[in-house]
């Protein structure tokens, strides 16, 4: 079977240090204010029954990517190993892929003025290295490799542990798998978000 790159994020190990975010920005020269990978953190419960839910996010390198479907100039497409890349000199900066990505994985690079996203650090991959976030993860929570190779660490982990993907209902077939993730991190309560916004505004008018 052909090589298929993927990532498993084992949240039982994540300590929320944000080293992945920082190393990614440093490695890929990501401008201020935008991120290729980031970690969302939420707190739930009331003392003493509390928990912090974390969710590291990055491009899911979907098998059925909405961003590739909508690009009007074929500037973004999957490579054979499943990694989705952007040809920066082709991108016209229309922002359609950014609007279409369900995972907010894309952004407009304010310096280059093109769309940008995680590419699994493909320059590092070409040099035989792991992506920067995987390399810098202090607890080894990010496991990266060929999901089609049954002997790879990622395959063994994915096959032996329960995993989930984000927004499976959209049929994007994401290739970032999560272990031990909390419901509130995966599915934020939108109703609560909107109520908070309304309350905020009403309160602000007092």
């Amino acid at each position, binding site marked *: 079977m052909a090589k298929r790159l993927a990532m498993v994020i084992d949240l039982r190990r994540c300590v929320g240090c944000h080293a992945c975010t920082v190393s990614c920005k440093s490695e890929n020269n990501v401008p201020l204010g935008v991120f290729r990978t980031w*970690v969302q953190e939420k707190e*739930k419960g009331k003392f003493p029954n509390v928990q912090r839910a974390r969710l590291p996010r990055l491009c899911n390198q979907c098998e059925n990517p909405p961003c590739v479907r909508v690009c009007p100039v074929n500037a973004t497409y999957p490579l054979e190993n499943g990694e989705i890349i952007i040809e920066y000199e082709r991108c016209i900066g229309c922002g359609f892929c950014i609007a279409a990505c369900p995972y907010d994985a894309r952004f407009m690079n304010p310096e280059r003025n093109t769309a940008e996203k995680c590419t699994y650090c493909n320059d590092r991959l070409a040099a035989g290295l792991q992506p920067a976030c995987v390399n810098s993860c202090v607890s080894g929570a990010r496991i990266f490799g060929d999901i089609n190779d049954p002997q790879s660490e990622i395959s063994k982990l994915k096959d032996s542990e329960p995993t989930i993907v984000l927004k499976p209902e959209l049929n994007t077939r994401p290739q970032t798998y999560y272990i031990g993730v909390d419901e509130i991190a995966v599915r934020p309560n939108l109703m609560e978000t909107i109520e908070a916004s309304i309350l905020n505004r009403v309160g602000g008018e007092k």
Partner: protein
Amino acid sequence: MPSVQFFDVTREIYWGILLAFYLFYKGMSAGAFLLSSLGTVFGIERYRKLSKVGAILSLVLLVFAPLFLLIELRQPGRFLSLFYRINITSPISWGVYLLVLYAVALLIYTWYLFRQDMAANLTGTGSKSGFYKFILFGKEDLSAKAKEDDEKQIKFFGAIAVVLALAVDVYTGFLLGVVPARALWNSSLLPVILLISAFVSGAALLIFVQVLVDKFKFGKVQDDIKSLLSSTANLLKWFILSDGVLLVIYLIILSLSGKVGAAATYFLLFDETWSFLGLEIGLGLLVPFLILLTKKTRQSLNSVVLASILAIVGVLAMRINLVIGAQKIPLTGSRLLEYTASGRDLAAVIILSLVMIVVLVVLFAILPMNRTDKKETNVGTLLKSNTKGVAQ
């Protein structure tokens, strides 16, 4: 138990006011053209009096609308690659070709529509007749055969433009609809809603501009135009009703389509209350509908013009709510996204709109907008006896 967002990154809305204005102007172009083609393509002779204003309006709006998109691009210098790097699954790729074909069909249609009247006014020596001479390309024949040929061409290119106008409007429904992540866009009703609201804004603009052209070019609005505009206002009333009914259906289905859909409905009704319920539904649909409800108000020019302006404002609000509102609902975070139009975008919208108005005024001033063609007066008197009855 409520959860507290402890750490997240902020996200920006990239598709903003420029895209909303693109949809607004392009929709009005298609709507105004489709309505004014009732006379030239569909053979309802009395609507022919609207065809000239409709053709110029839709042509100019169509030329300006894509400029909003061009400014929206972060790499506008690369826009030509849209023509040779085609992705058939991307609605923008379809749109590029549809817009060009529609513009070409519309241009040829408009040229044939004005050809005879320009050729008949070549006698003067002023700059006007020089301009006519220039754009006639020597086709100054005024024989009966040439006029008959004009009619054929108007009908042929008009029919092509009708199909393309429909396509140009429906494709934007896909432009937003192919994004499954956003509940407000991912609806099969969206192309239809965009089409009907294009009819609303197109009819309203046509009425408004026709009144202006008659007032300023001919001094007053003739009685036959008044009665025609009140019939058009009647059509506008039905378009508004259809638009409203479609929106209600859309909202009901949306509110029942899962967690995201329910939240999106809640967002429109209770967070965007002022711009959605107030501007889009109340001021933009309900008030003009009520104004146009009785025959008496439909026959008063002032109330018809007022209803038209409100309907146009309502459709603009609808485009803004649809484009920007949908993106305010977060896909990953726990906070609504904020949007403030950048100064550059606002300046682009204002400058482009003003230039567009100037171009329209110049064209209406120099082109022959007369309707008292021999054939038309004949038909006009024929129809005068039975003007009531049709769509009144």
